[in-house]
């Protein structure tokens, strides 16, 4: 049948007039014509869980003739209540990406060259299996490692289990820390960090924490910010955002406080100075649940009074003393103050210092005593889940039942440092390295050591949907499924005050010969004689199903349910009622697939301070001891100079700009590209510069005063030069950055990652002088000085 405009419209079931004059069709994609011509146009809907970020939003996918055409939010998913973010919307562009790898690829040329030959799955798996068996036979399991991009799903635990069962300790998870994670681990060995409830605060102070444009869950927090902003005129809620750049969090706050990058911890301690001087502190909490607050010469008040008086703090941070005084007094006088640190504050040389200082501000100012403000995450009935950790002294990675306070840090804090740990002899030589769900060569601030390290490893195997910047250093690239073609469970979102498990299920069967990572690992385990599944599941889907059995058996929670009051649901549950009836597991499992996941409608209980370790305030001695202890870290300023206490090295030295063309580089993330992976999706590439109105390409945000001095205008091209290299960017003159920084969006400038990302824009991370926070091991994004030169068009 020939498609004419008339019969096409008939097939659509509409007429031009009926459609209000807008549905006439002139150009139809070929494949769509075919679909319309032969398909019955049956609409179906399936639910699943988004995995573009770790937020775990429930999604509802609309399919026509079993071809997914659009992603919407799942209205009964508790974390997003039917909404998505732009990344969630764009998921199908990932699924249907024209450059997806169609079969396993073996490297043809030298490492670093993107030259491939396709091979069969059998051949690829045979090669890996042979390599594995060789290592296991020689008892050299520790020469196997796995770098795994942790998307907050069950698959991370499965991959960790796979590594552990082969006998290796080298499981390297890669993800951003949660809000307050560094500070809470240091202050009272709390990991993962406590959840918080923004509904309960009347004074929200965010130190670089941008809840609206990145993990843990931007949709949840955009919803909540909308609600809080609406009620703000009635409730008087004050929201203050402290940052060198006014991110969306700053734009939606009641006040933005400009600060020099890296000096947020100094501001927090300066506020502590004022609060202590005013004696407006939470005496009861301090007396019962903290230590090192009073201890003579070496206590917290001594640290603060000696080193952080307002004039000195003002000189370091650039925040005027009167602002500092006002903030401190407002914060300590409010009924439910809440200070959060995360985002850019955990990406600086002073990351842990800052977060510890901010945690101390909470302890000092009644935040921890406010009813319901801080919540205690309730563990799932799965038994203890091993935690990937890294030993601060030896640098060794391992999976442990829990972190050891004195010697361990969460493993993901140091994954970016792997080549340096190897150079320092802290990691064994690896014969086989697997990489999945992460692109270290794009994300790493120090790419050369990564290139060299990966070049030395004989077998680098990568699971990927697209050839990315890391692929040229892999020996074998295995095509893997997207989250829309596989089974998985998204785990409870850190920092959110309730528990949920989002079910991922295949909306379509795997496309283009891709296979789910879980199934590939399972097959490899079977072939090499590693027992991976005690539940005797034959596939990763079976494993996912089996993991929901203890949840069913516990009788807690319910499959997602139409929104009613949480309290009402909790009351029903206490009375023995269940929202749904599921006498057998099969019924429960069917409901999970229909509804999209499970949640516990009761919010987490209040944090109990009695049962946890006492909160430790920072002191000079503790800072100095930490600095001396953490010898594994690269850091150029470890030696003590004169009488200067070591900890003052953490005060973000030399932050002032020296010459008119000198700036501090400040990369930032946007909601359209939180992880760098958004660049592969054209919708996100185009609208990532929605606010500055710069589409596709990155830009450099500069304060009007500095732009005037340099005779620069909007749209002028500049060359940005650092010790690592130079890039050319167009200037956007905006008052939303401090005059000392040059803010550049992160996420562009991929060397690979498909046609929509390849060689479009520049990657600011490649310009970064990779300094490391000596206390946490996190690489700083906020310490690189750059010079700016005007480029003639």
């Amino acid at each position, binding site marked *: 049948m020939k498609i004419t405009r008339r019969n096409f419209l008939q097939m659509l079931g509409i007429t031009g007039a009926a459609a209000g004059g*807008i549905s006439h069709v002139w150009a139809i994609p070929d494949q769509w014509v075919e679909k319309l011509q032969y398909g019955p146009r049956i609409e179906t809907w399936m639910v699943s869980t988004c995995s573009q970020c770790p937020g775990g939003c429930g999604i509802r996918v609309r399919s026509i003739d079993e071809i997914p055409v659009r992603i919407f939010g799942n209205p009964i998913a508790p974390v997003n209540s039917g909404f998505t973010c732009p990344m969630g919307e764009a998921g199908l*562009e990932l699924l249907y990406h024209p450059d997806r790898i169609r079969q396993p690829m073996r490297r043809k040329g030298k490492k670093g060259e993107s030259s491939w030959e396709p091979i069969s799955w059998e051949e690829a798996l045979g090669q890996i299996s042979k390599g594995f068996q060789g290592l296991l036979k020689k008892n050299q399991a520790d020469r196997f490692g796995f770098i795994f991009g942790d998307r907050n799903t069950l698959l991370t635990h499965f991959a960790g289990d796979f590594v552990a069962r082969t006998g290796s300790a080298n499981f390297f998870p890669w993800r951003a820390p949660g809000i307050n994670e560094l500070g809470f681990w240091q202050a009272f060995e709390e990991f993962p960090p406590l959840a918080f409830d923004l509904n309960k605060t009347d004074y929200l102070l965010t130190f670089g924490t941008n809840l609206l444009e990145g993990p843990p869950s931007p949709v949840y927090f955009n919803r909540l910010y909308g609600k809080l*902003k609406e009620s703000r005129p009635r409730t008087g809620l004050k929201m203050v955002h402290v940052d060198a750049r006014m991110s969306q969090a700053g734009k939606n706050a009641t006040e933005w406080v400009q600060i020099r990058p890296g000096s947020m911890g100094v501001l927090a301690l300066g506020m502590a100075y004022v609060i202590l001087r005013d004696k407006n502190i939470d005496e009861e909490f301090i007396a019962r649940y903290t230590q090192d607050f009073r201890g003579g010469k070496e206590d917290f008040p001594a640290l603060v009074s000696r080193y952080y008086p307002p004039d000195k703090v003002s000189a370091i941070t650039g925040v005027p003393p009167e602002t500092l005084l006002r903030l401190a007094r407002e914060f300590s006088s409010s009924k439910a103050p809440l200070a959060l640190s995360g985002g850019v504050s955990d990406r600086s040389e002073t990351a842990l210092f800052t977060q510890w200082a901010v945690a101390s501000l909470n302890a000092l100012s009644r935040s921890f005593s406010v009813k319901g403000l801080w919540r205690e995450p309730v563990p799932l009935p799965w038994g203890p889940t091993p935690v990937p950790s890294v030993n601060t002294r030896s640098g060794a990675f391992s999976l442990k039942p829990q972190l050891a306070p004195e010697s361990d840090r969460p493993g993901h804090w140091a994954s970016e440092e792997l080549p340096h740990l190897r150079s320092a002899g802290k990691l064994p030589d690896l014969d086989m390295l697997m990489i999945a769900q992460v692109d270290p060569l794009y994300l790493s601030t120090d790419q050369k050591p990564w290139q060299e390290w990966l070049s030395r490893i004989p077998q680098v195997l990568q699971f990927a949907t697209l050839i990315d910047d890391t692929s040229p250093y892999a020996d074998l690239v295995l095509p893997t499924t997207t989250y829309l073609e596989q089974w998985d469970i998204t785990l409870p979102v850190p920092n959110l005050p309730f528990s949920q498990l989002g079910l991922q299920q295949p909306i379509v069967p795997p496309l283009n010969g891709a296979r789910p990572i879980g199934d590939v690992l399972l097959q490899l385990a079977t072939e090499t004689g590693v027992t991976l599944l005690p539940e005797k599941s034959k596939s990763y889907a079976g494993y996912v199903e089996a993991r929901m059995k203890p949840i069913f058996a516990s009788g807690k929670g319910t499959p997602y349910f139409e929104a009613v009051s949480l309290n009402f649901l909790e009351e029903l549950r206490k009375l023995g009622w269940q929202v749904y009836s599921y006498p057998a597991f099969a019924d429960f499992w069917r409901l999970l697939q229909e509804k999209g996941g499970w949640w516990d409608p009761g919010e987490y209980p209040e944090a109990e301070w009695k049962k946890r370790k006492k909160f430790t305030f920072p002191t000079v001695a503790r800072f100095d001891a930490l600095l001396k202890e953490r010898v594994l870290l690269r850091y150029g300023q470890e030696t003590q100079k004169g009488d200067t206490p070591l900890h003052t090295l953490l005060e973000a030295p030399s932050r002032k700009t020296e010459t008119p063309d000198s700036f501090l580089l400040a990369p930032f993330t946007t909601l*359209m590209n939180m992880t760098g992976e958004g660049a592969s999706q054209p*919708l996100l590439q185009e609208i990532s510069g929605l606010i500055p109105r710069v589409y*596709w390409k990155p830009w450099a945000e500069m304060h009007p005063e500095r732009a005037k001095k340099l005779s620069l205008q909007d749209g002028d091209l500049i060359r940005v030069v650092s010790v690592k290299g130079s890039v050319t960017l167009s200037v956007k003159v905006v008052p939303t950055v401090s005059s000392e920084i040059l803010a550049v969006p992160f996420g562009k400038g991929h060397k690979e990652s498909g046609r929509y990302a390849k060689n479009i824009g520049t990657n600011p991370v490649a310009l970064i002088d990779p300094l490391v926070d000596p206390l946490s091991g996190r690489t700083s994004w906020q310490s690189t000085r750059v010079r700016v030169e005007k480029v003639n068009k």
Partner: protein
Amino acid sequence: MKWGMVIDLQKCTGCGECVAACKLENNVAIVEPKESEMGRTMLWMDMLTVYEGEYPRLRVRQFPRPCMHCDHPPCTKVCPVRATYKNEEGIVAQIYPQCIGCRYCMAACPYTVKSFNWYKPEWAPGIRETVNPDVSVRQVGVVEKCTFCVHRLQKAKEQAKSEGRNLREGDFQTACAESCPAGAIVFGDLENTGHRVNSLSRSPRATRLLEDLGTEPKVIYLKEVD
């Protein structure tokens, strides 16, 4: 019946989800980087930013900007071929096959909501699967803009008819209103006192863009109060 929209700027967080939802719902073409630099990016829903004052009193106002669906639309008056007109429900519609691409309407629109199709709509293999089959793609040489997702109205009307009832509030929602996480965009019948937009449009915070031009936009903004 008069369809209209209220956007509460006190709630809007400027996340841009409405922009993404609109592009995907209406198959608004994505133009290449080079063309984009020439100002050819097509957004039916845009996000405008206004900077007020200087630091420390700097305030940044962000507001989503769809077509205003004016009651007195300047664009329809200048169209030489009646390719754009206001229908009886107040929606300013476009008839693509009738458009000759003169772009008079683009010049006349004070809100700059219209885009011109410089290219034949093309999708890379695979990506074309993401096209919404409910909305036609536009031909090269025609002007397009926000339609208040009128294809959804058609569907909602048919559904209501099949159930033998009138349209209810919520039956017909634009993609932007449906997707806004902050709940800042409300859509409905401005003349129906049972619809939220009706009461919201009479709020003391209500304002319209460029009111003095007399275009009488049916998109009403509720001003921020802090």
